[in-house]
């Protein structure tokens, strides 16, 4: 039993480091690891993964908030989209063709992969013209970039587009149970033109909120098994603290290079789930 605890704990640390650096939930690592390596049921694995998304978010957010990488105003604006999206996704889940959705969201992710690859050398966004709403809501930010050694000031643009995208990303999370951060980072980075590091930190901040309402439901159903979720979450908390320390010192291009394979893999996997026939 002790050995199993240690193994699950180690997986948690790995998922926490990756998840906190890239602004993702880490479910992409935890769910396959628990089901394939430990033979756990999908329900147990997904429940443990959902609680650990909160751990990634909370563990890393302390460092990101202190370093001003997290933009709380942008986060709260966009959380309106993810929270209402997740709600409507859960409500219409029974009436919708999941296969079509997988293909649709898979194609959207393929497009973001292409975009992200195209801009892989851009350290910071340039020539951003903020829209009127962004100015009215003061969606600005500035942080000291430890990798570049200077202060970065920015203001987001396409504020409404970002909110709409977050609504659909929330709906995807509610309908398909995937995509904690994988849609959020490209929406902020490519659509709203936030610096990449601020995008992953803000995505990391936001995923906890979406995961919390799902986690309450899993708790109520009794899917959260303390002996599985406990070690995973403890590992993820530790990993997230380490990951956040590493990330603030890394260049945006490096982090983006780690992000591209994961988003490409998720895109392919989703399209595959949509087209496979049985």
């Amino acid at each position, binding site marked *: 039993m002790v050995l199993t605890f240690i193994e699950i704990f180690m997986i948690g640390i790995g998922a926490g480091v990756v998840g906190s650096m890239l602004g993702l939930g880490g479910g992409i690592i935890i769910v396959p690891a628990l089901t394939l390596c430990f033979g756990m049921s999908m329900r147990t694995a997904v429940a443990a993964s959902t609680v650990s998304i909160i751990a990634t978010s909370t563990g890393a957010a302390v460092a990101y908030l202190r370093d001003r990488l997290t933009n709380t105003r942008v986060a709260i604006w966009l959380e309106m989209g993810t929270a209402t999206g997740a709600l409507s996704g*859960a409500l219409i889940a029974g009436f919708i063709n999941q296969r079509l959705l997988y293909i649709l969201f898979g194609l959207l992710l393929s497009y973001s992969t292409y975009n992200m690859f195209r801009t892989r050398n851009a350290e910071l966004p340039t020539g951003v013209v903020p829209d009127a709403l962004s100015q009215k809501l003061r969606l600005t930010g500035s942080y000291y970039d430890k990798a570049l050694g200077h202060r970065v000031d920015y203001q987001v643009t396409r504020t409404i587009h970002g909110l709409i995208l977050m609504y659909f990303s929330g709906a995807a999370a*509610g309908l398909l149970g995937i995509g904690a951060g994988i849609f959020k980072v490209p929406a902020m980075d490519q659509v709203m033109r936030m610096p990449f590091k601020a995008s992953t930190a803000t995505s990391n901040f936001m995923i906890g909120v979406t995961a919390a309402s799902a986690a*309450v439901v899993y708790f109520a159903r009794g899917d959260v098994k*303390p002996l599985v979720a406990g070690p995973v979450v403890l590992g993820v908390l530790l990993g997230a603290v380490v990951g956040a320390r590493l990330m603030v010192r890394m260049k945006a291009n490096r982090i983006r290079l780690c992000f591209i394979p994961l988003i490409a893999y998720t895109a392919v996997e989703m399209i595959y789930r949509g087209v496979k026939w049985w």
Partner: protein
Amino acid sequence: MVVTQGSEEKGPEEKTAEVMAIEMVLARLLRIGSLLAAALLSVGILAMVLGQTDFAPKLITAGLLVLLCTPVMRVLVAGVIFVWEKDWHFAFFCLVVLCAMAAGVFFGRGA
């Protein structure tokens, strides 16, 4: 912790101080939440290893529940700060988020 008074006209310096304050408050809140959760989880897992099999899962569950509360508390506290600063737009956004979360839990339990 710097809390600026809610005056009508704010200079640019005051605005930065304001942004700093909310981020510092939230950072402190999340830190307390994660430390408390980590402590409960480690004691629980240790108790499990030492053979306290009926007591340990309860401790671990308590740790997980503390962790679960942090994002909710975070939105709530942010909302209170925005009300304090008379930033009605963002206070309203926090309210929308909280309502959507509550409705999600309500409908999710029924499913």
